[in-house]
């Protein structure tokens, strides 16, 4: 089922007091695609992420994941059900090692409790081994295997960004949401990262990517949704978006009377 919709955002509205951060936004993500969510600063991209991952409660509208509404679910439940994310400002667990950071992600699918741990029951051992294997595999995939025992705080900026992606992948999500993973990278590093994101998709993850560097996002995404001032102003293949006058206007600015 190549066109199965994994996430459906339906007329999502989010208001903070008098400010409407998201205004009636609808889009969906199909399984196995890389969807770019772009827009100028303050357009509501991260807000949209936060609504999807349960950080904010929508004022109105629904978000369905695999056909089920996410309303009322706790944040950790949303993660456990298969949506993982990274953060615009890196939020690793600084005094834990790279490996442990990824293990925390892997633990999302585990159920070992205090009794299993205390008596070293088979479940603890099984999950510990499985989690460790998965975590090391992901660290190798991200090129971080050598830094596995290094504290997250001591990793370089780029490694920290990659570690965040590894941690998110370790929760074994179907949909992985990357919030400006290339922020602070130079053009060369950005290209490498975009290749990596394609590889992430090739491993069977569906990717939702926030990025406000247009040129970059064109190369990697299958489809793009453009937000401006909390409204969706365009949606389509990268080539269509590039030529869309509304998008060009949003990014480059136009004369006052032409602005919509």
């Amino acid at each position, binding site marked *: 089922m190549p066109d199965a919709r994994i996430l459906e955002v339906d007329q999502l509205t989010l208001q903070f007091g008098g400010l409407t951060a998201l205004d009636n936004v609808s889009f969906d993500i199909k399984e196995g695609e890389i969807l770019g969510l772009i827009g100028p600063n303050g357009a509501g991209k991260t807000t949209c992420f936060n609504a999807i991952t349960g950080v904010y409660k929508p004022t109105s509208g629904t978000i369905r994941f695999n056909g089920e509404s996410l309303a009322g679910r*706790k*944040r*950790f439940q949303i993660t456990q059900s298969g949506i993982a994310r990274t953060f615009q400002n890196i939020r690793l667990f600084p005094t*834990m090692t790279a490996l442990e950071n990824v293990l*925390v992600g892997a*633990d999302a*699918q585990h159920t070992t409790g*205090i009794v299993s741990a205390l008596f070293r029951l088979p479940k603890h051992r099984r999950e510990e081994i499985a989690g460790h294997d998965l975590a090391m595999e992901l660290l190798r995939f991200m090129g971080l295997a050598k830094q596995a025992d290094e*504290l997250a705080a*001591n990793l370089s900026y780029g490694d920290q960004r990659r570690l965040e992606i590894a941690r998110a992948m370790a929760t074994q999500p179907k949909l992985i949401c990357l919030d400006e993973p290339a922020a602070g990278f130079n053009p060369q590093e950005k290209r490498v990262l975009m290749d990596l994101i394609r590889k992430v998709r090739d491993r069977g993850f569906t990717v939702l990517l926030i990025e406000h560097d247009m040129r970059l996002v064109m190369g990697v995404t299958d489809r793009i949704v453009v937000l401006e001032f909390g409204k969706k102003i365009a949606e389509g293949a990268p080539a269509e978006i590039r030529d869309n006058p509304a998008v060009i206007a949003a990014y480059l600015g136009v004369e006052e009377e032409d602005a919509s």
Partner: protein
Amino acid sequence: MSRFSLGTHSLPSVSTLPKPVKIVLWISLALLAYALPLLEPPFISTPGVDFGGVLFVVTVYMLVALGLNIVVGYAGLLDLGYVGFYAVGAYTAAILTSFHANWPLLLALPFAVLASTLSGVLLGWPTLRVRGDYLAIVTLGFGEIIRLIAINTEWLGDSRGISNIGRPPSLELFEIPHLNWDTGVPLLDFNDTTTFIEFGVLDQIPYYWLGLTVVILVLIADKLIKDSRVGRAWEATREDEDAAELMGVPTFRFKLLAFATGAFIGGLAGALFASRQSFINPLNFLLLFSILFLAAVVVGGQGNRWGVLVGAFLVAYLPQRFREFDDFRVLVFGLALVLLATLRPEGLFPPRRTVRAKQLEQELDELEEGTDGEEKTHA
């Protein structure tokens, strides 16, 4: 860097030893700990105060510090009312063995622990939704409320307290002589013996043995739990609660678990203390003790189980060892805390990771300032 050398360079050398050597080392250390009150080593033993009794109090503080370390050190929840759990454990043991029933202590102990664990859950359920300073204030209130309830409730013996609290069953097998150092050389003193194992009024050494055994068991349990999904979830929650939640950690549940586990150990310590004292009243559970318990954890190095043991030892032992300076006790204690806060803000033995992170930070600073050329090779 030299600031941190004390805790860092000695520890890795132990962990790199081959396993059989390590086991022998640990066993001899444990044996030495058990034998300590019999050896009565000069300078270490406490003149004027019963050494066995002091050591027992040390084990109670160690237990409390281990429990509080789970709450404060691992899960990062500032608990200023930990004495409340300790009191619940002590009072439950007292009520069941003396005041309202005549249960044997060993039967009452599980109930004392259960009661304190429950009180931890009951306190945590509504309060763990608030964070940081607010949690500290709420727990502070809890500790005081427990004490005030004890004072004002006749059923709990009000301010007169409860006496004749049950002792563990004795099993008088044989006598162990102490060492006598009066002549300068250690001699076996057959006039001064400890009965193995009699939980009486005069000789507190069997209580110390019991306390030490419980400390060792809790220490092992602590390690097993810490090195698992539970320990990682606690640490992740402490480091960044929101990020942890978004990585699939049910943070509230794990915070509650940390609270309950801490309360469990606190209640156990309280019940042991009550049994040894044989008499408790609300004065045993003042706010001061919450602060002393927290001091043990912070002085030792929160998050490091060996560090908090050292902290507990210092807080419980030093005032007894230097009793002649009794009048200056609080002054010295305050000065020591101020010095510690300025010189070693992470405690005497911070967890190795904090040390590593700090070291790197410092090296980077030095590199940026360009003050120390030799450090460059390391970074």
